[in-house]
Structure formats: C-alpha cells, structure tokens
C-alpha cells in the first residue's frame, strides 16, 4: 500500500527500533518451527510474510530483503528495481521518472535512512538480486542461515 509505504520510510527510526527488538524473536521462533516441522509450514509463513510486508512496504517478495539498509523503503518498488541509489532521471519535484505520480523510492530511502540510527547501512553495496529466491520467504531463508533478519 502506497501510503503505508511512505509512512514506513517517514517513520524509519520507529520501524528500526521495532525491527531491532522483534527480529531476533521472529528469527529464533522461525528457526524452532522449521526444525520441528521440517519445513512443512514454509508455505503459510511465506504467505504471512507476503501479507505483512506487502501491506507495510509494498513488498514484492524478491526474497532478498534489504529494507533496513534502504531507509525502510523497498527498492523493488523502483520501476528499474535499483538497489543502490536513484537513477539520474528523478524529476525536479522528487518524483519518479517512469511513474510521475509516485515519489522516487530512493528519495524516500535516503530521507528514511537519515532518520535511522544505523544511517550508514545505506552506503553498503547491495549486489543485484538473486532471482532464484523470487517469491520465497526472506525470513525463512535467513532463519535457516541463522543470520540477522533484514
């Protein structure tokens, strides 16, 4: 949802606090569920991730989530799916070259990042999306890898 998405990047600091507090819990819970059910609940978990992140961030389920490194603005909403910053075509009013009615995702991302405590994360180079993860749950994958959820 566009409005929820804009809200997220404009309140990126609050989202960061919530995320930092909840992610270890979600991660370890998913890890336990995964061990107990041997992946049988992967589908409903993926489905709920899609619903939750879809509503909050207009998540496109790329399976390579980098929200905490992009000021809580999902870069997959950029029509060019740019993962490292805006293109050179941003309009003078800060809107998208391709969708003139939409705020540039990276204008939102940079301003979101400035509000966050970890405002350097946006400077990390994100290599191109691994398309083999498309449609899968980033949560489950990271829980299995035992990494920080992003």
């Amino acid at each position, binding site marked *: 949802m566009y409005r929820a998405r804009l809200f997220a990047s404009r309140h990126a600091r609050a989202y960061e606090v919530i995320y930092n507090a909840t992610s270890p819990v979600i991660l370890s819970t998913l890890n336990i569920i995964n061990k107990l059910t041997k992946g049988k609940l992967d589908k409903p978990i993926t489905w709920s991730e899609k619903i939750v992140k879809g509503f909050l961030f207009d998540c496109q389920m790329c399976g390579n989530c980098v929200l905490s490194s992009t000021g809580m603005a999902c870069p997959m909403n950029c*029509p*060019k*799916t*740019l*993962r*490292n*910053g*805006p*293109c*050179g*075509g*941003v*309009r*003078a*009013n*800060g809107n998208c*070259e*391709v969708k003139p009615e939409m705020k*540039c995702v*990276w*204008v939102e991302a*940079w*301003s979101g990042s400035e509000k966050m405590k970890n405002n350097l994360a*946006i*400077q990390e*180079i*994100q*290599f*191109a999306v691994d*398309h083999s993860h498309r449609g899968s749950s980033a949560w489950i994958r990271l829980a299995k890898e035992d990494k920080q959820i992003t």
Partner: protein
Amino acid sequence: MSIPETNNQAYTYHPGELLPGLEGHISRGRFERVLRNGDFAVTAELAPPDSTDRNEVFEQAALFDGFVDAINATDGSGANCHMSSVVVCALLSYIGYSPIMQISCRDRNRIAIQGDLLGAGALSVCNVLALTGDDVSAGDHPEAKRVFDLDSISLITLIKQIRDEGSFLSGRTITNPPQMFVGTSINPFVPPVESRILQLEKKINAGADFIQTQYCFDMPMFKDFMSKAVDKGLTEKAFFLPGVGTLASARTARWIKNNVPGVHIPDSIFKRLEGAQDQKKEGQKICTELMQQVKEIEGVSGVHVMAYKQEECVAQMVQDSGVLGDRKPWSPKDEY
C-alpha cells in the same frame, strides 16, 4: 578439431593493437594514459547510426579528430534503437580510436553483459561506462520489457570482478580477462540533491575509475558538488569529466527540460538563449564557456561534450575554449 598450421594467422589476428601496459595503469588504452599523465582530457559523445554502414561511424568519429581523446558510444540512448555500442566501439578501436563503451542495464542481463565485455575486450575496447539507462517508456519502443537485472553499482562491481579476479560472477575462471578502465555517471542536479555526493562515494567505492556527469548547465550547483567531492577525497580516487552540451535554441532547451529525464537547465541559460540573435551560435558559445569554467574547478580532470545533432561543431568549440592548450589528441590521421 585442430586449426591448420597455415591458417593460424587468421585466428591470432588482432585489430587495433593495445598499447604496451604501463605501471599503475589499469587498461592498455590511450584515454587512461591522458588522464594519468595529468592532461586535461576531452571526451565526446557519438550517436551510433541507424544503419549498417560502418562508414557512418567513421565519418562521425572523424569530426572529432585532433580534438577529442576518447569517444563515448551510446547504448540505445533515450531507449531508442541504434547500432549497438559494442560494435561501434569495436569499429572505432579497429582503426585506433579510444572508445568508451556505454553499457545500460536496461536491455541486457548479467549473462549477456559479461559476454559482451569479453567480446569487447577481444576487440581492444579498453574503456567502459556503467549506466542505469533511461527507461523504455522514454524511447520509441515503450512496449519493450525492461531488464534492469543489474543496476549501475552492481555493474561496476561485476566489471571489477571480471577484471581483477579473472572470473565470471559464477566464479568460473576467465583466461585473459578484459582490462577495462571503468567509468560511471552521476547526476548532481536532480533530487535527492543532498544525497548525490553519498551516491557518488558509493559508486567510487564500488570501483569507478572515472566519472562523466549529466549535462552541467548550473555552474554554482556543480561547483558546490565538486567541493564536497574534494573534501571527501573522491577526486583522488577517480577522474572527473563533467558533461557539457549545446542547446540549439530556447525552444529546444524547453523541450529537453520537459521531455528528457534528468536534465536541469537554469533560467539564466534560457534568458541568454532568448536574448540572442542567433540562438544556435549562442548555445555553442555557452557550451564553450562551460568548458572553460569546468576546467578551473578543483578536482576536474577533463570535460565530456554531448553535442547531439551538432557533432560537427565539437572540434570548433573545443578549439575556441582553449582547454587543450597546445596539446593535440591522437587521431588516425597521425597514424596512416
């Protein structure tokens, strides 16, 4: 099947010889030599033809002879179809020019791009410019599928990996990887303006060796950007070639402002054009003055001239500006 001994020549033939490698140089091309030598470099944009006649490429390149160090071959600029940049660059390096192969992420995925980089390397192409690319909606095939498998920073990372680690993204070894001098672009004139310097830093950290900017018509804005780049030490890590261009008239300028993504033209330029008797001449005069002005800015190593449909005026403008001093860039005429 083994190649017959007598035909070996045909398989080892190398069009456009590479220059001998120099200590501290990445590529074996002339463009990098000019920059590392501390000379003020001039690059110009060539519009690949809508034709299979290679003479059209050579004729356009010849317009720059003696005034330009490297020629950018655009890659489907404005999302319009033209001859491919790989082939334009191959043709140009064949007779010794130093082309800069533009790669847009719009049309090719990582498999195609890696293949083209090797192909270009085999044809002595030494310079590459990593670009995001205008969206398909900007061009004459708005119904096309946009690829954008990579973005410009991922593309720089990819080229650097191929070059420095000698392997494809998959890790598979490349014997004789292409030694490309990697550039990218930046547009300091459009939002998010305050973050553009951070984006530039990210691009240089990814491995950009040189930077060519979008049209630079707003000198105070550009000076401000460059002073930030100098403060961050970025001009020590990459060569900067701001883009300058010609505007045929105030009407054209207005059209560009409204229709070409990412071009910022301040009101002062419109006033100058509107007040002039010969607007085309005035546009060229502005371009010439911009060249002189950017040369004075700290951290600037050269200038990139984009004179779309006015390519025949580039040599005169460079000469009038005097930015080359008494240096005369290499041209095939010196050689043959």
